[in-house]
């Protein structure tokens, strides 16, 4: 789901960044956040809500709402929409409030 042609912006020639999602190796690009890299891979469902266990994706994409919370390198409640994607990072879906 990457933009391939754009009249104003150029997203070509960016470095690949490897990471794992749910233990499986994936890659995104330099400049991605964790959430944008996942979305580009077609992953929209990032966590399950606290009480009703309903699927959650991102909502605001700028760090306001916590809808994109995931477990990153073992730390829960990381706002993945504003966390830059780093080489080798381990990303997992979060259930409810998450666990260390």
């Amino acid at each position, binding site marked *: 789901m990457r933009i391939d042609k754009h009249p104003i*912006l150029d997203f070509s020639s960016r470095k690949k960044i490897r990471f794992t999602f749910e233990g499986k190796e994936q890659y995104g690009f330099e*400049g991605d956040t964790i959430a944008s890299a996942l979305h580009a891979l077609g992953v929209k469902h990032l966590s399950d809500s606290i009480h009703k266990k*309903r699927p959650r994706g*991102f*909502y605001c*994409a700028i760090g*306001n*709402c916590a809808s994109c919370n995931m477990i990153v390198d073992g730390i829960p409640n990381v706002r993945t929409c*504003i966390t*830059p994607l780093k080489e080798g990072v381990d990303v997992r879906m979060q259930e409810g409030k998450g666990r260390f």
Partner: protein
Amino acid sequence: MRQAEVVIIGAGPAGLAAAKPLLDVGAEVTLIDRSAMLGGQLTKQTHMFFGSEKQHASKRGIDILKLMVEAIETYPNLTVLTETTVVGLYADKVVSCVKDDHYFKIQAQYILIAAGASEKSLPFENNDIPGVYAAGAVQTLMNVYGVKPGDRVIMVGSGNIGLIVSYQLMQAGVQVPLLLEAADTISGYLVHASKIRRLGVDIRMNTSIKRALGETSVEAAEIWQLDENWQGIEGTETIIPCDTICLSVGLAPLTELLQQAGAEVKYVRELGGHVPKINQHYETSLDAVYACGDVAGIEEASSAMISGHIAGIEIALKAGYTVANANDILPRLRHDLRNLREGPHGEKIRIGLKKLGVA
């Protein structure tokens, strides 16, 4: 505890504009933003700006941002903290921050809150499933990260943001078959609406979304017509396949930090929600704590830049610095701000500011 003369929370157009006059007089400025990039909403605005020449109208938001950052980045008296979220603010001007999962405090002498706003949501069945996104979020995803939100988007809301983001979605190769508006008129600029209509977007008035369909993400939207009291009319429902529902239904100022510190706020509908009571110097009810930009009332980038510029000068003056030509510059900036708020599109702001008692 870290010490700082002036802490600016938020590096959008308001915070960036405020930093410049403070750096010019030699004040030590710490500029904090939770994002990895400076620029706030400007980072995703690929369209040419409306507004006045002096605030860079007819340049793209992303280019304006470059100019604003270049204007301050080389000052030795500037400290920039990105990927840093301010999580607490206290009346004695202690700012608490989190960076890289690490907590620290800063004792400031002057604080400017330029935290901007958050996008509102809309109540409807299944509005919490993945694929229901705020319009600004979709814009960020596309224009900052180069990722499409989906292949087929239904936009809700005909304000300028809804209209502009619809256009930008099509620029990125995404279909936008439908834009829904609950009212009976388009609330943004007609030029923007005409442009997307020409590209084939069906703009439907008196229509809204009833529910989203889909298990783990959006697969369709059920829409319906509204009566004059904005109530859905039974029997008018249609199901439209789509993978994204984009909500552009307004913004609310991010005043939580100000409220936590005990600054007086007032609910003013026209300004987007709770806004701080500021005086003409942009100072809140707390001594030496200032607020400007969208956090002080939802407007636009041009006014955020001017209010930031004024607030920066006001803080410098209060701190005892001499600002060259302040007596000429301040009235001119206030005049520019009044100009921006003229005309029918500025009416809401004018009413709001009157209610707040600052106009």
